[in-house]
């Protein structure tokens, strides 16, 4: 069994809601973290990211000035002088499939839907510490490998090397809704 020495980790927490920042700070300090830096908007968080060089970033999505998604995109600049590889945990009230996909494509490492729990946060941190994924760089993406699992039995098309896209047909929710409205 593994434990994390939280006192060796430096966190950057970015959330515009002071109550949520307080909750996060309480949880991280209780885990054992000593260095927890806080920001209430994306722009300040980016400055603090460069200045403090945190090991792990925990950010909300919806924030003023620029949001958590833009923060992730700015951190994930492969040519930047800062560290583009730091794990980013997005903690947000958004939990729709579309949002999760957008966050993943912005380079977010882990997604944690509110309501927050001590267990959920600990597991996400343990995951980024113990199981880091390789990074993928393409013309349009730089970030953690979006394929979490290697399916040895996968026999479908290899999308990453090109070729025609295979579209899987799924029943439309629109039709379903129309029949119920």
């Amino acid at each position, binding site marked *: *069994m593994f*434990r994390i020495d939280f006192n060796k980790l430096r966190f950057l927490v970015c959330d515009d809601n002071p109550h949520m920042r307080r909750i996060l700070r309480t*949880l991280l300090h209780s885990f054992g973290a000593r260095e927890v830096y806080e920001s209430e908007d994306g722009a300040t968080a980016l400055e603090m990211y460069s200045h403090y060089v945190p*090991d792990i970033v925990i950010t909300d999505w919806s924030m003023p000035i620029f949001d958590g998604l833009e923060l992730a995109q700015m951190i994930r600049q492969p040519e930047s002088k800062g560290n583009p590889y730091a794990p980013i945990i997005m903690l*947000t009230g958004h939990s729709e499939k579309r949002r999760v996909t957008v966050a993943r494509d912005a380079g977010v490492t882990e997604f944690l839907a509110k309501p927050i729990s001590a267990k959920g946060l600990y597991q996400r941190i343990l995951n980024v510490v113990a199981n880091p994924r390789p990074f993928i760089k393409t013309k349009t993406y730089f970030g953690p490998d979006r394929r979490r699992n290697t399916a040895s039995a996968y026999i479908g098309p290899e999308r990453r090397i*090109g070729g025609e896209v295979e579209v899987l047909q799924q029943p439309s929710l629109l039709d379903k809704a129309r029949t119920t*409205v």
Partner: protein
Amino acid sequence: MAKDKPATLQIEAFADHHVITQPNPLRRVLRRVAEKDLDDPVARAEKALARLSGEFKNWMEVETNRLAAAHAAILKDGFTKTTREELFRAAHDIKGDATTFGFPSAGVAAESLCRIIEHAPDLDQVPSNLIAHHINAIQAIVGERTKLDTISTASELSRQLRGVADEYLAYANRDRPEHLEAILAPSIVPAE
């Protein structure tokens, strides 16, 4: 603290992408402990959260007042980019925080309000009562939380509001499949 930049990157080049593997810079913060190790950081954090819970009611009232103020601005100035964003942000914060603060029904009502703001084709066309009822319900749930007999009422109130809002959104978006998909699709994020 962990190193700023990975010491050695292994880069494998493929036709249209690179795979970059780095030695885990955070590995040194992991330590193996015995299975019977009694230290439980999660339990410790939950206790700390419980100690903080005495403040949750006040925090929830602050959030609710912010929501009411955002609604009042809309009643005064109508839906503008600024007023819409503030209403959404206030409702969205309650959606995310309310369960943690012990007001899950307020969170359900706030989520329903968020969905209206996000998916209604034209907010000016949304029946004003529909939005007002959500605001009033959240205020009532938070204000009356101390009365034990209101908990089931709060849950039922939120459930019914969500039903009415979903019915409205499904009808208003009947010709907007991308919104309809989002409205009807379940969350794919596991709670933990």
